[in-house]
C-alpha cells in the first residue's frame, strides 16, 4: 500500500543512484584491473635488467678473437646471482625500433647488443655493474624497476583518484536521498499529520519511507550495475582488439572471486546505506517538527 505520494522522487532518485553506482563500479573495476595489471608488471620487472653492450662485435682480444659480447657473456655466466639471461636477436631489436625511426637509418647505425637478464636478487645489481664496467665503461645496465618508478607514482595517484570518485559518488547519492526524503516529507505533510492522529509512531513513518527508498534504490542499483558490467565488457573487447592484437589478454580472467565480492559490495552497500540515511532523515525531521 503506497501511503505517501512519492512518485515524483522516483525518477530523480533512480536516475541519480543508477548514475552514481555506474560511476562507482567503473572506478572500482578500473582500480582493481589496473592494480592487478600493475602488480603483474611490477613483479615481472622487479628483478629484470637489460644490459646495453655497444659495439658488440668489436674484438677485444685479438689472439683469441674474443668479441666484447663474448666477454660480456662470460662475465654473466660466471656471475652467481643471475637466474637467466637472453641475448636479444638483432631482428627483434630492429622490430622494436622500426616504428620509431626511418628504415634506412637502421642500415647505417650500429645497434648495441641487448641482453635481458633476470637476477636472483635485485641488490646484486651494483656488483654486476662493477664487473661489467671493468670490462668496458660503455656497457650500461638499465634496471626495469627504476624505469617503472615514474609509472608507479602515476599509478598510485590514479588509484587515489578512483577512491575519491567512489567517495564522491557515495556522497552525492546520500545527499540525493536526503533531498528526496525531505521533499517527500514536505509533500506528504498532511498525510503524516493524519497518521500521527491515528496513532502512528515516527518509526512507522520512517519505515514506510525506507521501504519506498529500498524499492527505488534496488531497481536503480541493478540498472547501474548492469550498465557498468556492459561497459566493462565492451571496453575489455575494445582493448583486446586495439592494443593486444595477437596477444592473449583476458582482463576478466585476472579478477578472482574475492575481487568480484568487493565489486558487488558497491551495488549492495549503496542501497543499504541509503535506507539508513532515509530512516535517520525522516526521524530527525519528525522529531524537530514535534
Amino acid at each position, binding site marked *: 500500500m503506497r501511503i505517501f505520494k512519492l512518485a515524483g522522487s522516483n525518477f530523480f532518485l533512480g536516475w541519480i543512484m543508477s548514475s552514481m553506482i555506474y560511476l562507482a563500479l567503473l572506478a572500482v573495476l578500473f582500480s582493481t584491473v589496473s592494480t592487478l595489471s600493475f602488480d603483474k608488471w611490477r613483479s615481472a620487472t622487479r628483478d629484470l635488467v637489460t644490459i646495453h653492450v655497444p659495439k658488440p662485435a668489436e674484438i677485444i682480444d685479438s689472439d683469441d678473437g674474443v668479441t666484447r659480447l663474448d666477454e660480456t657473456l662470460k662475465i654473466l655466466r660466471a656471475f652467481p646471482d643471475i637466474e637467466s639471461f637472453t641475448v636479444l636477436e638483432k631482428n627483434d631489436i630492429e622490430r622494436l625500433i622500426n616504428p620509431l625511426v626511418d628504415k634506412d637509418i637502421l642500415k647505417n647505425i650500429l645497434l648495441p647488443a641487448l641482453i635481458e637478464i633476470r637476477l636472483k636478487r635485485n641488490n646484486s645489481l651494483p656488483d654486476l655493474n662493477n664487473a661489467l664496467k671493468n670490462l668496458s665503461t660503455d656497457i650500461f645496465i638499465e634496471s626495469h624497476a627504476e624505469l617503472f618508478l615514474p609509472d608507479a607514482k602515476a599509478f598510485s595517484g590514479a588509484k587515489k583518484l578512483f577512491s575519491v570518485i567512489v567517495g564522491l559518488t557515495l556522497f552525492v547519492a546520500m545527499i540525493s536521498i536526503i533531498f528526496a526524503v525531505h521533499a517527500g516529507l514536505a509533500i506528504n505533510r498532511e498525510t503524516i499529520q493524519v497518521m*500521527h492522529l*491515528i*496513532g502512528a509512531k515516527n518509526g512507522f513513518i520512517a519505515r514506510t519511507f525506507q521501504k519506498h527508498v529500498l524499492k527505488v534504490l534496488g531497481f536503480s542499483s541493478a540498472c547501474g550495475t548492469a550498465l557498468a558490467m556492459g561497459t566493462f565488457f565492451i571496453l575489455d573487447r575494445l582493448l583486446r582488439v586495439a592494443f593486444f592484437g595477437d596477444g592473449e589478454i583476458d582482463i576478466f580472467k585476472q579478477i578472482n572471486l574475492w575481487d568480484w565480492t568487493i565489486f558487488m559490495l558497491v551495488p549492495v552497500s549503496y542501497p543499504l546505506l541509503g535506507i539508513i540515511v532515509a530512516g535517520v532523515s525522516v526521524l530527525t525531521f519528525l522529531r524537530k517538527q514535534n
Partner: protein
Amino acid sequence: MVRFENVEIRYRGKEAILTDVSFDLGEGNFHFLTGKSGAGKSSLLKAIYMGIFPSKGKIKLFGRDISSITKKEIPEIRRRMGIVFQDFRLINNLTVRENVALPLRIFGTKSSIIRRHVPELLEWVGLGDHLDDLPTSLSGGQQQRVAIARAVIARPVLLLADEPTGNVDDTIADRLLYLFKELHRTGTNILIATHNENLLQKFDYPVLRIEDRKLSFSD
C-alpha cells in the same frame, strides 16, 4: 475516561479560548459538545487528543494526567481514540479500503484480519460497493462514512467527532448520527462537537455547551 479540571486553553500570545473548564466524561457515554462557531469546540477536542496542551489546569485521559504522558507515549494513547474531522482528512491516493485499513496497518494487525474486517465494516456503513474507489469520487456523506469507518475500525474506546455533519446535508447528517448511535450501542464512548441545533433536539443526549469561554453541562 476524560476529566477536565479547571482547564484553560490559550494559543500562544492570544486570549484564552476556554477558561476554568471542568467536566467528567465517564464510561459508556454519548455527549454533544456545542457552541457558536469559534467558541472553542475544536480546541477542546484537540486538547483531548493532545494536539494542544492546556495553559492551566489538568486533563486526565484514561486515568492519566496528560502532562505526565511523554511524547513517545502519545501515539499509544491516541490508538485508544478515534477521531472524525469535519473535512474528513482522508488520504486521497488511497482507496476507500486502504483508508479504512490504515489504522490497522499502523498498529501492525495481520493482513488476514484486515482483509476480513475492513470490507465488513464498510458494508456496515453502507459502502460495501465502493471498496476500491478513491475518496475524491465519493460524495461528502460517503467520505464522512469512510472517515467514521477509519476512526472505528480499531475499536477505539473513545470516539471524537469534530463537526462530522458540517459538510453534508441534513438527511445525510441524520444518517451519520444514527451511525454514531449504533456505534455507541456497541460500547464506544462518543463526544460529538456540533453547532447543529437540529441534531441536538433530534437526538436526546447530554450536551456540553461552550458560551463566553465557559462550559456548562445539561442532561
